[in-house]
């Protein structure tokens, strides 16, 4: 069989994601370097934003991504409010916080399910998604849709949370806490999961900092970098919560960070409902935004989201810049995939390492290009072929060193 194979169409799957290409440089069976190519999902939102009003942009921002949609809408609203320079009602802050945290819960559960499906554990996937449905119900009840919230608007929020809905939400949170604890137990004790995740995809603390990783990825490397704590937005300044970090820096750490964060989020939602002041939920702000610029930052489920907005005094932004968290984390992938000293990356570790940053562009095009550093030859493999290759080079009865 020849070594050179063309890039496959890639599994068209419940592909929750945008595609991406990785080039790995290998020496024998070790990966010694990696490079990325993204952009198959580029739509041109930033340009469109300059032709639409701020209000319209809120909704397109929400659709940059359906998984952490509210984060983008919130962030755009926040940056715009900074330009206008008016405070918004406190109750709106709390309602936004609830929205953001519900979003985090659903996103982390979703990831857990997808990761389970990834390793062929469909039953766990089914269970997690079944239990996630209750969160979706709460969200639907609160915002009017399961996925796109349309909750945040410039100057506040569009919907209030009446007493009875809040009580229902609290009940759901209590039940969910039990479930999530059960999953944590399961992930800690399930041998196959540990076998495939411990010591894999290590991102050392220094590297995580140098490459500006964000979210659970950097926190799993022991850095307590969490926008909610460092740069409190919404009502995070009044709600105590723990910034979860683990310091084993590997895939297991990333799983545990996400699960613990889910538990933390459940607490935040409870706390926010308890502390929420009464009052108006939005301030009427002018539709035309004064000249100026603003930067909004938010901690999305996958890490820091930043929006930069410039206004020239009309009702449309002059420039609107978005940076989603996955882009920030992608840069760490080549490092996780590079053998260095004692740390050896096998080709078979590539897929799971990649999935561990919770990339929103993972699987549609999961081909990896390899370049042999000694001969300069290059070829393309799918993730599956990698696994086969791995087997060939390592006789099965020998344990991995």
């Amino acid at each position, binding site marked *: *069989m020849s070594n050179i*194979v063309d890039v*496959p169409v890639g*599994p068209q*799957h419940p592909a929750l994601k945008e595609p991406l290409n990785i080039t790995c440089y290998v020496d024998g069976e070790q990966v010694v370097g990696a490079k990325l190519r993204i952009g198959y999902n580029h739509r041109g939102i930033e340009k469109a934003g300059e032709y639409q009003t701020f209000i319209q942009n809120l909704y397109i921002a929400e659709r940059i991504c359906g998984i952490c949609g509210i984060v983008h809408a919130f962030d755009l609203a926040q940056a715009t409010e900074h330009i206008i320079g008016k405070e918004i009602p406190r109750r709106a802050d709390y309602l936004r916080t609830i929205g953001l945290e519900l979003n985090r819960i659903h996103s982390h559960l979703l990831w857990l399910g997808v990761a*389970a*499906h*990834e*390793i*062929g*554990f*469909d*039953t*766990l996937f*089914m*269970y997690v998604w*079944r239990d996630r449905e209750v969160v979706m119900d709460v969200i639907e009840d609160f915002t009017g849709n399961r996925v796109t919230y349309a909750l945040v608007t410039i100057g506040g929020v569009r919907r209030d949370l009446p007493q009875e809905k809040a009580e229902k939400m609290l009940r759901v949170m209590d039940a969910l806490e039990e479930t999530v604890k059960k999953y944590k137990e399961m992930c800690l004790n*399930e041998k*196959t*999961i540990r*076998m*495939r995740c411990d010591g894999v995809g290590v991102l050392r603390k220094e590297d995580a900092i140098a490459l500006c990783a964000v979210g659970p990825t950097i926190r799993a490397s022991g850095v307590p970098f969490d926008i909610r704590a460092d740069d409190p937005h919404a009502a995070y300044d009044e709600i105590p919560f723990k910034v979860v970090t683990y310091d084993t820096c590997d895939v297991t750490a990333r799983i545990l960070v996400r699960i613990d964060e889910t538990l933390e989020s459940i607490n935040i939602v409870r706390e926010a409902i308890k502390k929420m002041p009464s009052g108006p939920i939005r301030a009427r702000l002018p539709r035309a935004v004064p000249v100026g610029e603003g930067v909004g930052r938010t901690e999305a489920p996958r890490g820091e989201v930043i929006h930069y907005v410039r206004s020239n005094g009309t009702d449309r932004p002059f420039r609107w810049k978005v940076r989603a968290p996955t882009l920030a984390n992608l840069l760490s992938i080549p490092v996780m995939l590079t053998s260095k000293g004692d740390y050896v990356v096998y080709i*078979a570790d590539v*897929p799971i390492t990649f999935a561990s940053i919770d990339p929103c562009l993972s*699987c549609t095009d999961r081909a990896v290009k390899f370049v042999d550093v000694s001969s300069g030859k290059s070829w393309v493999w*799918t*993730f*599956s*072929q990698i*696994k*086969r290759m*791995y*087997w060939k080079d*390592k006789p*099965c*009865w020998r*344990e991995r060193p």
Partner: protein
Amino acid sequence: MEGEAVIQELIDVLRTLLFPGFLFFVILGLFFEWIDRKFYAKLQNRVGPLYTGPWGLLQPLADFVKLMAKEDIVPEGAIKPIFSSVPVFALALSLFAALFLPVCGPQGIVSFPGDVIVLAVVLTLLVILVFLGGLSPASRYPEVGAERSVLQLLGYEIPLVASILGATAMTVGLGGSLSIEGIVNAQRDWWSILGFQALGFAIFLLAAQAELERVPFDIPEAETEIVAGWTTEYSGKKLALLRLARDVELAFLCGLGATLFLGGPWPGPLVPGLGGAIVSTIIFVIKSIVVLLLLTVIRAAMSRLRIDQMVNFAWKYLVPLSIFQLLLAVVVAPLMIHLLTL
């Protein structure tokens, strides 16, 4: 005399074609797929097929008929003769294997001393077919799937054969012959699984799961990794036949498990004596379903292993264990029986 022979011949042909031969096993295969899907769904808190026939009972049939009627594409560059014949051979082979099973009496339709060995060979041939089926379309995913199935075969082949031989050894130890009939009759009042064969049964279940390429050994078909593995390029009729072959194989392996370890058509230790053909068939099917349900639980409660982990696991645990239990069956058990009967 002459007439009787003709009638006998006719009955044999009917037995082969209808009951308990081909038609019976095709229906049983479809039925087992339904049970498998339903129970799998149940374990996942779902309902599974529901609207096709009562409780979705006809779902596998609908799938089959639909695929038969669909356009059948032969991909460019495929080695056509092999690509097209693999599904037919796969179905023929699994049906052939099924003829050995003692469905309505202690004897299968085909039965001769040493038929157990033939069965083991047929099981291996089926995997070779997978290999050919995967290589012929000259496409990458199937290729990988095909290679994986052979790698996997290396892992579970020995345990599978060893567990079959273990069950056989009992009969040999008791003075029987190397045949299915002997094995079945040896379990007249005492099922193998209740004796020294419990371990053998467990090994058989795992190996059967691997032979059927189901979780945790669905590596050759790993959907998230290589689309649909070696079947990726098959469509229409050929896919229908392949799936049917899989179903028959499933029914066959469950039946084999029931035969070797659960006493086949014998009603059980407490109720001596063999019922009529119908009663035997019912008992046989029920026992097979028990095996099937166990296989389904395994499928639901495990994650897929990586190919290296699978082979590793097979060689480190399955192979030694299966040899150990074979020794147990060949040496220790007859000894004990000998001592007891002394």
